């Protein structure tokens, strides 16, 4: 079955420390993966997607098909990075796409 796993519910790091939010997936086809972020009292919004191979707000994520992982990384955490982060797998359905989400990781960046 298609599945997305985020093993950490909460990750606390100090400001300036590196951050890695883990995401593993199980998918029979060619996966397309996303990271979404939800800042306090804001809506869920796209952070980045693996196809674009971009860096957004200093975050990067590389798809590792061998390890079926899509971990989110940032070399130096900032306090404004504190948020809820969700990994999502896009799956084709009925002419469009649907997401399978992980349970999310709350990142707390401490001063």
């Amino acid at each position, binding site marked *: 079955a298609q599945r*997305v796993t985020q093993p950490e519910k909460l990750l606390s790091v100090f400001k300036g420390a590196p951050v890695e939010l883990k995401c593993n997936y199980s998918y029979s086809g060619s996966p397309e993966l996303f990271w979404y972020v939800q800042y306090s009292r804001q*809506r869920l919004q796209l952070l980045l*997607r693996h*196809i674009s191979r971009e860096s957004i707000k200093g975050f990067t994520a590389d798809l590792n098909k061998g390890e079926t992982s899509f971990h989110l990384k940032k070399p130096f955490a900032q306090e404004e990075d504190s948020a809820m982060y*969700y990994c999502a797998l896009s799956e084709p359905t*009925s002419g*469009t796409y*649907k997401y399978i989400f992980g349970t999310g990781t709350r990142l707390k960046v401490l001063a």
Partner: protein
Amino acid sequence: DAMVIQNPRYQVTQFGKPVTLSCSQTLNHNVMYWYQQKSSQAPKLLFHYYDKDFNNEADTPDNFQSRRPNTSFCFLDIRSPGLGDAAMYLCATSNPTALAGPKNIQYFGAGTRLSVL
């Protein structure tokens, strides 16, 4: 700003009393989704509309229905809410027919938190 708007932000209903949550969008997207998110859990897709075509997830209870009267609006109807239906309900849109750019990015509303007394 073009947006996905959910009303109300908080909804309280009584056990067994029908309730409707609404979602509107100014993005003119073909697809609208409804998700249920319980505390500390992943958002779970209930169903989606592609234009007027309704697509129900296999494990969505019959208690949950949806209507999409036009492109801009989509409603989630809970016919007889139970205590287990208390959750955050998220609406999202996407545009799989976009001529340029990614076709599978979803744009979310702020959600409606439903309480069942």
